[in-house]
């Protein structure tokens, strides 16, 4: 513990020296003072730009910015005559519409000359037949409908403004319905309040929490890169401290900064500080875990930057996507899948809604698991040879896999590797899903199946192939045993994740079905078979690993395809 603290303090001093908060910085000779006049000129220019450009949106404008930050002023609407306030230039509540007052002659003429897209004259709405005008109508229609409902709700008592309530009963098949007057119903809907709003604004705000964490992790990555390049890391490694202590010591200051930033943002956005910390601590660990891997694998700065960019994009996408569906009316309990992302919890927090402990653990556990895996990998990989070796990526990955396993326990290692790699497999498959939507539907399913099978096969066989290449697995029997354990590990991880998400989603019946014999034994046999095939081919033939993988992938996807066809 004391060693960790020493390294942490050292890390803070390193950072301070870099930024010249304390004396003794190395060789920074350019004076920031010389830039001062430039900052002044820039300030003057910005101020005059502000005066030129007109108003700066204030906090009160936020509802107006809803859905429209990007499409600000996309549609041009001319209005004339007597209008409700929400259609006047001063009162319009949606930034997408530039509303201008026109006279009746001007309105008709501008609409014809395509200077406006829609002309509203009192209760009459005029448009052209081209795409622009029709799309603008579509956007206006939505906006006006919403505003009309609000107006009616404000002007009239509820029983007049919302005269229709519909009691919905879901009929279980073959079951007589509970009839009678004033009966219980499953749900009550009010037609004009049926579609839930997308939690767009809340998701954007909760991204604010992630932003500083990502920024701070740039420092964390840089610190490793620097010490890796100037070989200070090697010196540290020869000292009597463990790699885990080094990683933790370097991580702790940044993690504390990140959590302070989260707390500050919670205060600024009016959230609960304790709750925000609870939600974002696993997320912070997850982001740090991923950023720990970046400098371990890469050497040049450009690589690091672009890999970091890629990682940031992917993690953001991974977090935003489920959160967007926080309120979606998904059938059954499927809407709980939104809890894959911690941002969903943040959305609930910002809205003052509650969630259960299980819903909290749903994103937190996999993230913590990835953090744990990455810490383990980090401690195994931080050694002179691996860090300084400049090798092709595929080779580097194989080396990493070799280092992560224990020579003395080949069987246990392979099974554990297949099990622990599951969260990453799952992340990768999600990414492929996003890519595949670009393809035409006929190709989409096929490519999805192929890619998913490929990732699975890599995950299961890489450990075994590494053993074979290092000459540690030499007989077919060994390969078969390893394949069985790898398949078993993978299956446990896969079904465990599925079970976690499904039990979140619906009743235990499905969970039991998953654990029942047929559902388990056949996949285990199939997993083992394909992995053993890959291992045996590697052992007995001189085929390159890539070729073997492609072969096994094709077989695996054919099996999956047949399975799907049978099921449908």
């Amino acid at each position, binding site marked *: 513990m004391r060693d960790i603290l020493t390294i942490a303090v050292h890390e803070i001093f390193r950072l301070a020296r870099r930024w010249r908060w304390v004396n003794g910085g190395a060789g*920074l000779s350019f004076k920031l003072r010389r*830039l001062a006049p430039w900052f002044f000129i820039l300030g003057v220019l910005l101020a005059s730009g502000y005066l*030129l*450009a*007109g108003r700066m949106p204030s906090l009160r404008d936020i509802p107006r910015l809803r859905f429209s930050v*990007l*499409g600000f*002023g*996309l549609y041009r609407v001319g209005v004339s005559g007597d209008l*409700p306030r929400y259609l006047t230039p001063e009162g319009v509540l949606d930034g997408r519409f530039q509303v201008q007052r026109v006279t009746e002659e001007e309105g008709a003429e501008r609409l014809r000359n395509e200077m406006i897209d829609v002309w509203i004259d009192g*209760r009459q*709405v005029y448009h052209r037949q081209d*795409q*622009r005008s*029709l*799309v*603008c109508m579509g956007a*206006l229609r939505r906006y006006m*409908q919403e505003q009309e409902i609000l107006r*009616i709700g404000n*002007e*009239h008592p509820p029983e*007049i403004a*919302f*005269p*229709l309530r*519909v*009691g*919905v009963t*879901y*009929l279980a098949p073959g079951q007589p*319905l509970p009839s009678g007057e*004033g*009966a219980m*119903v499953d*749900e009550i809907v*009010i*037609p*004009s309040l*049926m579609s839930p709003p*997308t939690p767009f604004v809340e998701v954007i705000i909760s991204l604010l929490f992630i932003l500083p964490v990502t920024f701070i992790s*740039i420092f964390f990555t*840089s610190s490793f*890169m620097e010490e890796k390049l100037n070989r200070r890391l090697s010196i540290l490694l020869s000292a009597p401290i463990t790699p885990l202590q080094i990683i933790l010591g370097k991580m702790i200051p940044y993690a504390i900064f990140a959590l302070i930033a989260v707390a500050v943002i919670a205060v600024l956005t009016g959230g609960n500080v304790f709750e925000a910390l609870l939600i974002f601590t696993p997320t912070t660990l997850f982001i740090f875990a991923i950023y720990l891997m970046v400098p371990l694998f890469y050497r*040049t*700065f450009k690589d690091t*930057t672009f*890999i970091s960019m*890629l990682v940031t994009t*992917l993690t953001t*996408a991974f977090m935003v*996507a489920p959160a967007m569906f926080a309120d*979606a*009316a*998904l*059938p*059954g309990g499927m809407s709980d899948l939104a809890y894959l992302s911690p941002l969903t919890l943040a959305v609930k927090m910002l809205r003052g809604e509650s969630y259960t402990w299980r819903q909290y653990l749903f994103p937190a556990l996999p993230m913590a698991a990835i953090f744990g895996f990455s810490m383990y990998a980090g401690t195994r990989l931080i050694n002179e040879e691996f860090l300084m070796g400049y090798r092709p990526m595929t080779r580097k990955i194989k080396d990493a896999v070799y280092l992560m396993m224990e020579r003395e326990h080949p069987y246990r290692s392979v099974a554990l590797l297949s099990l622990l790699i599951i969260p990453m497999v799952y992340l990768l498959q999600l990414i492929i899903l996003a*890519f595949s*939507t*670009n393809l035409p539907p006929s190709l989409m399913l096929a490519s999805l199946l192929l890619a998913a099978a490929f990732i699975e096969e890599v995950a299961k066989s890489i450990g075994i192939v590494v053993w074979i290449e290092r000459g540690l697995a030499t007989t077919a029997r060994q390969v078969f045993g390893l394949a069985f354990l790898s398949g078993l590990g993978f299956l446990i991880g896969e079904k465990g994740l599925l079970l976690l998400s499904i039990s979140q989603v619906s009743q235990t019946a499905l969970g039991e079905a998953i654990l029942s014999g047929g559902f388990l034994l056949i996949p285990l046999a199939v997993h083992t078979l394909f992995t053993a095939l890959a291992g045996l081919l590697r052992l007995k033939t001189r085929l390159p690993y890539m070729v073997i993988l492609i072969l096994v992938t094709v077989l695996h996807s054919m099996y999956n395809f047949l399975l799907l066809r049978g099921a449908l």
Partner: protein
Amino acid sequence: MRAMWAVMKRELNAVLRDRTMIIAILIQLFIASFSSALLIGLLSLYDPDSAGIYANIRFPVALVRPQGGNSEIITADMEALSRLLSERGLRPQTFSSLEQALQAMDNGQVRAILAPPADQEMTQSVEPPGISISPGEMRLYLPGERALASVILNILQRPLQAYENLLRERRGAPVHYTNLPGRPPTTYEFIYTVIIPILMLFPAFVAGGMTVDSLAEEVENHTLETLLSAPLTLHTVVWGKAAAALSLAVIQCIAWLGLLRLNGVTVQAAPLVLLLALISSGILSMGAAITALVFRDRERSQFVFSLSLLAASGLSIGLGVSPVTALARLSSGSYPTPWLFVRDMTIFGGALIMVVYALERVIDQVGRR
């Protein structure tokens, strides 16, 4: 000039060798495809009917005629409901009792049952959605399979809303602007306000990041001294690197515009869009060169660069002269007035000139030492 060309070529070779570009392009492809996948998902889950996803789904619906009450009003109600359902393309069938309708549903003749109350005029109070319902209210029976039920409920939403408006009007609270035509705007907005700005500006970010890294790497690895001892000036080195980053950005933008066209997206004023993308790339890569020269190490340069990028984009959106908005307006052809366009271009051009001048000054000062 030839020396600068040599630096530029060296830089481009390094980029191609590192496969950095491939990652950068992959990121852009991912962002574009991911956001469109997200959009489709959002549309189909939040508002499937207006997105036209269920447009071809049609099914028979049972209408149960209530017993008792004022028969004239009931007949009018039943006719209104049945007309509204038919307008959506559904096939209303009238039943005289709930039992018959339930039987029809069991036999698969109808998919849903609507049972309006005898007397709609009865006053009700709107409480927070509870589970018990008074006899004076409408009932809806749906199949027990939730996935199917939610689709049916979604399709029934429009007719029910229209019926609700009818009731409002009857009670003296008419809703205006109903029944407007129009096309769903989401895809259109998405292409012009998200996809095109992303594809045109991301190459600029990449150019900036590349310049910072490339310069910081030369400084930290002490290769800059070697370069400068050759017959190269700091000017040539910096401008060569910036030019390399810039040319890559332009190639990417042109490629994206071509791909968009192949996908049937019309970009209005494409040359101007490209010009704006070029100006943004110029500002970012030269701004990046300034940061790298001032701070010299990658850690601080990247941090300061990203932070100022963030501040600048926030500020420009706040001031209303953001290149994002300008690109959206330009590519969709919706600049309100030509003079506004001239104003925006003057501001961006002015910023570019300022950055170029600042870079020259910084190079002079750094070079003097």
